[in-house]
Each structure stands twice: as structure tokens, then as C-alpha cells.
């Protein structure tokens, strides 16, 4: 494991809407006990008792254990006022934070795990798509992904051919740009911010920036939570718990190109908190 790489990133540790007078939200971050308190205008984060930076971004409180962190990534769509912003967390999962991200980048499981929502048999085929490490911004991008979806979003009324693009701006964050059913010229944005409590336990903070002014907020949250709970039943039953980086330990196929590149990118950076580096 490498704590040194992981320490220099920012992590979402609470939703702004959870903050309340006199309330302390306790969890862990990279093995350390943390407490999140304060208000929506003045959040406070303590790690092992000491004050840490606390930033408000994407409807969450972010913190870092580093005194010289890498900058927090940008999601441009967060500035578009006509979108609905929906934090849907938290979902605690007993798995490696990296396995949670890898699962989010995977479309081949939709017909089996999210049956009737994000996929269904016999529409199981994954056609070729593109994946690259964009060195200039140090991010993994997967593009030109198309998939048949029975109900791509709460706002979808029929099955559609959905277009996907994935972006991995940090080892424990993934952003999905996805066909927006009511507004075909725009992309819905769905991200997961994963808080690594330890190498084998994480809190997933899903966040959406959608064009959907019809569906009730609570229904949007419920739609995403149902999907993440389905994913949890998978993530807590993968062995080993840590993400293997040795290519001999798990056998990928063509549709797993995003996973292959993600694992390669982690290994190259030494971003191995939550990864299995020895066999």
C-alpha cells in the first residue's frame, strides 16, 4: 500500500446538507478518525483531533491530510445554474475504494446487476470504445461508449441507446457523462466521490448534475441509491477485497479496457492505497 500518494488528495467526507448545529459526523479517512462539524458556511474537519482544511465543492465538504495537496479537480457542469444538483450519499461499502471506482467504470454488469434499469438481456454486448490516459491532465478517459438501456435515467420514458463517457480525475473519483433523455444536446453528469476509510472499507458519495426539472428530488436520490445498493451486493463479495494490480490475478476481456487502463494508471502513479501489489 502507498499512503503517501493518497495523503496528497482531497476527499469528500460529508454532504453539506448533513451539517447542523452541534452535530459531529464521525468516520475515518485513510485510517484516521475524523469528525466533520460546523455549518454550511463554516465547515470544520478534524483528523485525530487536529484541524484540517475544509472546502465546500459539489455539495460536499472536502478535506485533505496533506499540507501540500494536489488541487481538487474541476467539474465544469457544477457552474451551470439550470442543472439540478443531487448529492445521494452516503453508501458505506466493505470493499477497497479502488474496487468501488472500478465498478462504476464498468458497463458490462448492467444487464445482470441493474436488470431492467441500466441494462437487460439479450442486450449484453459491449461494442469497442476508446480509453486513454491523458498525460497532460493526468486523467483516464473512456469515450465512444454506447449501450442499450431500459431506463437510463429517472427521466427516461422508454429504452434508449445511451452514450457514455467516463473520466477518472483522481484514483478515488469517477465522473460519468451520459446521454440526457430530456435534453439530447447536453450530458447528464453523475460522479462518485469515494472516501477511503481504510484500504478495505469506503464511503461512496454519489453526486449528480442533471437536466431534470420534472422528477421530485427524493425520487432522484432514491433512483441512484437503489443502483448503488445493487452494486454493494457485488462489491462486498469480490475476493480479494483489495484491487489486484498483478494482471495474472484476474482475467479481463475486451470490454474491460477501462479497468485495464485504470489499473495501469494507478500502478504507474504508485496510487496503491486499496490495491494489492504483491501476490
Amino acid at each position, binding site marked *: 500500500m502507498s499512503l503517501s500518494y493518497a495523503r496528497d488528495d482531497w476527499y469528500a467526507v460529508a454532504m453539506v446538507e448533513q451539517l447542523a448545529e452541534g452535530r459531529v459526523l464521525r468516520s475515518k479517512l485513510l485510517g484516521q478518525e475524523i469528525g466533520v462539524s460546523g455549518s454550511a458556511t463554516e465547515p470544520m474537519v478534524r483528523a485525530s483531533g487536529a484541524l484540517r482544511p475544509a472546502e465546500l465543492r459539489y455539495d460536499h465538504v472536502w478535506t485533505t491530510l496533506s499540507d501540500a495537496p494536489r488541487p481538487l479537480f474541476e467539474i465544469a457542469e457544477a457552474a451551470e445554474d439550470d442543472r439540478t444538483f443531487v448529492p445521494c450519499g452516503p453508501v458505506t461499502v466493505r470493499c477497497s475504494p479502488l474496487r468501488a471506482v472500478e465498478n462504476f467504470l464498468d458497463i458490462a454488469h448492467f444487464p445482470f446487476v441493474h436488470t431492467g434499469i441500466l441494462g437487460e438481456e439479450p442486450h449484453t*454486448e459491449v461494442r469497442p470504445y476508446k480509453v486513454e490516459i491523458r498525460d497532460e491532465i493526468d486523467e483516464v478517459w473512456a469515450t465512444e461508449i454506447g449501450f442499450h438501456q431500459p431506463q437510463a435515467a429517472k427521466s427516461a420514458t422508454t429504452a434508449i441507446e445511451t452514450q457514455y463517457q467516463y473520466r477518472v480525475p483522481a484514483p478515488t473519483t469517477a465522473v460519468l457523462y451520459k446521454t440526457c433523455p430530456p435534453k439530447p444536446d447536453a450530458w447528464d453528469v453523475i460522479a462518485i466521490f469515494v472516501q477511503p476509510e481504510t484500504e478495505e472499507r469506503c464511503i461512496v458519495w454519489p453526486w449528480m448534475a442533471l437536466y431534470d426539472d420534472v422528477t421530485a428530488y427524493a425520487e432522484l436520490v432514491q433512483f441512484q441509491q437503489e443502483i448503488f445498493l445493487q452494486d454493494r451486493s457485488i462489491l462486498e463479495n469480490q475476493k480479494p477485497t483489495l484491487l489486484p494490480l498483478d494482471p495474472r490475478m484476474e482475467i479481463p476481456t475486451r470490454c474491460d479496457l477501462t479497468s485495464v487502463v485504470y489499473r495501469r494508471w494507478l500502478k504507474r502513479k504508485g496510487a496503491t492505497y486499496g490495491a494489492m501489489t504483491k501476490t
Partner: protein
Amino acid sequence: MPARAVALSRDLPPKRVMRADVEGCDIAVWRDPAGRLHAWNNRCPHRGMRLSHGFVRGDKLACLYHGWHYGTDGVCTYIPAHPELAPPDTIRTEVYRVAEKDGVIWVSVSGPAEPGGADGATVPLRTLSVATDEVRALAGFAATPFRGAEPQQRETGRLDLGARTLVVHANPVGPDETHLHVLVDQGADLADRKALSRWCEAARTTAEAGRT
């Protein structure tokens, strides 16, 4: 290592899959539509998902995560994401020996699955999980009277309870958890079986309290 009793046959009907623990190995046990049993390493070689969460389709076991199908020899036959692709036969899961006798399923992780344990009872009664080790679990059963009679243990796992005879097959699945698969003699009627089933629960309480 000897084979271990992992379940009663009636608890694993055709087209069903279950998880078992044998000598510390995580095993997926499933029954195909023809009634044949299969015991495999409980891990899909693709992403490490437990195959015991999978589903039986035809005479294949499919992983829940991505629907990869495995034939009765443990070799991958179909990858739904690439329907035209013939998977290489290097994609396979480890296959263990499995056997069935007197309504009990036996699995061995090394060598043949020879059903073992005591004789004297052949009718499946029930399975219980007891929160203690194998020795204390069996001792608890041997120390619990049935209809006023003290159990006589003639050999390990065989208890004579007055007119009735029980055989208990124990499978230790952790330092403090033992699964017991209990059989009764053919002379037991429905009232006997109900009474013995309740007696098993009293015996479990005795075993877990360590009052032996």
C-alpha cells in the same frame, strides 16, 4: 484431508447454488437441472466475484456480476459482453470432488469425496449452526438428555437416545462456528422428528453455554 458434510441434499434442489466452507476454502456448490452436484472454488476468475451468488442457466453456472457462464467442467463457455467470442479454455475455476450419501452432500478440497462419519441413521433431520468449535458442539449434544434418557455416544458423531439413534456430521467453518447436519434412524415417526428437532436446539444452547 477428509471430505466434509456441507448440506442436506434437500436444501440444494436442482438449479440452485449455495456457499460452503470446507477446511477454510470458500466453495460454491450447485446442482444442475439433471440433479448432478458440482463444487467449485467460489471465485469467478474475471473479477473475483463469489460464484455462489450466481445463477444456473441450463447446465451452466453463471456469475452474477457479468453473467460469464461456466460448464460442468468449470471452464468458461460464454461471455455475454462478447456473444461472438469463444472464450479461451484457460478461463476456468478450480473443481473439487463432491458426493452424496443418505441425503447429505460431501465435499473434499483434496482427494476424493468419501462420505465419512458414523453409521446408524440415514434419514435427514435438520442442519444447525452452533457458535462453538467442533469438539464442544458434539459434547453439548452428548450431554443433553432426550425424553429423560442420557445420550450414549458409542462413537464420535453417533448418539443413542433411548429408542432413537442420531448421527451428527460436523463441519467446522470457523474457530467459533460449526455446522451440524443431523440424521435420524428410519424408525422415527413425525412426532419423534419434531421432538428431536427441538432437542437439537436445546443441545445447541448447552453447547454454546459450554455446560459440558
